């Protein structure tokens, strides 16, 4: 944990017990401080934090629509510039808002170079509407629109590589993080806010409800994603990978078998070919980012 929270994201919201997105919000505001304007997309975080007439946000906060948080942020940044105000602007969205429906606004805002930070809390499906697949859903995950069945092993496509897409826009700082490593997340938020221009952070946010694990295991699941190489924490500066979290890798099975969304790969029988395909995803990640710590014999 990051120690005592400064409490800008207030307790008493309606997130599920063990919600990673709520942990992310608290940590993000701990890093950002009070002189921050937050623009939320429609989604779990917006809904659980702001049922009228209550709000969990002790910083200025706005929600407009599902897909326009980057465009709304563009307008806010322009307005602050015109007024000579110094507040920082953070746009927050889930993976559905970020990878899918909001990517037009996101791309436009990054291309124009507005000085703001976009943070995606990535729980790898549309959780607010009941666990439908998104462009961030990993291969073979069972969701309500990519259910595993007699002739399906779940989601048929790998996760979209959004950080690279945003790096290709010329973003000066792009990073991935995980709620399993909150001090690291906090540092990355601070770094993104201190960097001029549009910066992107993608935070792995395991969803106990959508992925099917007990709420007290959120941190452990997040950690396993990193330890298996299925999620890589890295930083990119000016388009180049500059820092990567290295691990002694575990087989992907250690991560998969803890979650209901991958249960069909183990029951009623082990689906070796599919498990091998997911292992290959981790192996490719390991090779691409060089995450493996080589143990001395």
């Amino acid at each position, binding site marked *: 944990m990051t120690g005592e929270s400064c409490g800008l994201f207030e307790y008493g919201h309606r997130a599920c017990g063990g919600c990673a997105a709520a942990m992310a919000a608290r940590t993000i505001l701990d890093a950002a401080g*009070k*002189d*921050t*304007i937050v*623009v939320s997309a429609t989604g779990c975080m*917006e*809904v659980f934090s*702001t*049922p*009228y*007439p*209550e*709000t969990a*946000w*002790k*910083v*200025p*906060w*706005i*929600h*407009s*629509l599902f*897909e*326009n948080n*980057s*465009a*709304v*942020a*563009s*307008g*806010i940044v*322009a*307005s*602050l*510039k*015109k*007024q000579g105000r110094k*507040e920082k602007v953070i746009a927050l969205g889930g993976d559905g808002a970020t990878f899918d429906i909001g990517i*037009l*606004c996101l*791309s*436009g*805002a990054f*291309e*124009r170079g507005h000085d703001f930070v976009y943070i995606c809390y990535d729980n790898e499906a549309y959780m607010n509407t009941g666990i439908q697949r998104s462009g961030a859903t990993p291969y073979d995950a069972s969701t309500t629109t990519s259910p595993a069945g007699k002739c399906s092993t779940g989601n048929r496509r790998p996760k979209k590589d959004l950080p690279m897409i945003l790096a290709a826009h010329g973003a000066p700082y792009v990073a991935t993080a995980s709620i399993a490593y909150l001090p690291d997340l906090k540092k990355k938020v601070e770094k993104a806010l201190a960097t001029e221009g549009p910066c992107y952070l993608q935070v792995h946010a395991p969803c106990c409800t959508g992925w099917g694990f007990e709420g007290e295991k959120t941190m452990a699941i997040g950690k396993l994603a990193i330890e298996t190489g299925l999620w890589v924490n890295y930083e990119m500066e000016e388009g180049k990978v500059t820092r990567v979290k290295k691990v002694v890798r575990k087989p992907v099975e250690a991560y998969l078998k803890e979650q209901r969304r991958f249960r069909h790969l183990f029951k009623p029988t082990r689906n070796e070919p599919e498990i091998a395909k997911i292992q290959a995803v981790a192996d490719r990640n390991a090779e691409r980012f060089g995450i493996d710590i080589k143990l001395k014999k």
Partner: protein
Amino acid sequence: MMEFMEGSHAVAHSVKHCRPEVIAAYPITPQTHIVEALAEMVANCQLDAEYITVESEFSALSACLGASAAGSRVYSATTSQGLALMFEVCFNCAGMRMPVVMSIVNRAMGAPLSIWNDQQDSISLRDSGWLQFYAEDNQEAADLHYLAYKVAEDRNVLLPAFVCFDGFILSHTYEPVDMLTQEQADSYLPRYTPVQRLDSADPISFGLFASPDYYMEFRYQIDQAVKGAAKKIASAGREFGEMFGRDYSDLVESYRLDDADCAIVAMGSICGTVKDAIDEMRKDGKKVGLLRLRSFRPFPEKEVRSALAGVNRVAVLDKNVSLGTKGAVALEVRDALYGQQVPVLDYIIALGGRDVRKKDIRAVVDMAGQGKGDLFYGLRQELVS
């Protein structure tokens, strides 16, 4: 000062005089000349505004919403497909009570694709909570922007506003326009002071979701604000008249209506043609008058009822159609006259830029005299039979 200007440029100059702090816009015919002119002003330091070259109309209005929430006076302009792409944000702006002012250079909706004029685009947003003003000529198009900001930003109104004027017919036509000076504009429209804004010194949350226990009261308050805007339009329109000689306090304009048997009801540039046709018909002894709606939202229900009290029949010219029923203006005029015996006949006319001449207006009046209406006027029968 009288200047001979293209409609789009007259509007751009008015907008400049309104001192918008953030402009976000996207090119689309026939609106583009406005935002090109504004971009040029910004590029030459004639207008001190942040100009956001967004990637879509959807983002244009979203950026305006954000800038408005942060406390800036904002401006955008669009038409037709662009406005349709903004549909979701339009409802949002009104619901969040953001006083965005946007020019709508009226154009038909596809399909089929048409860049030419009718009023289907803005009329389709009639339920969104935006105020809607329709200009007859370029002078009015230019002037209504000052009025729109003044009304929209009033703390008892706090609603976004469309200033609508007909694509090409007005936007690309040169007319003499009496332009205000910056000093005159400043004396009418003070700098924007937001009622509330995103501000870390006083953090508030905008755009919360409302459960069934709260939602209806929000909608009721927006409805009350749209209706109540009529009062502010009256005072702001009168003030404009006192300062500059052109009074916009009435939501409607009556033309030779006092002793008329037949009243034409219309909005926008077609009214110029209608007035000329009426003058000719009057010479022939036909008692015809015009009721022009300058404000469609709020809808001037009382004004319509009182203006049309003495006529025998009403012919509504609708440059739009609610497919499957009638034109939107006719439906609302008929509703305003509910309980009265006067027949209201609807003429869907000039869709997709089809030209309307004085002889067409005379023909409509003749048809109304025969009780023939509720039809598409001027169809090429060989194409539809």
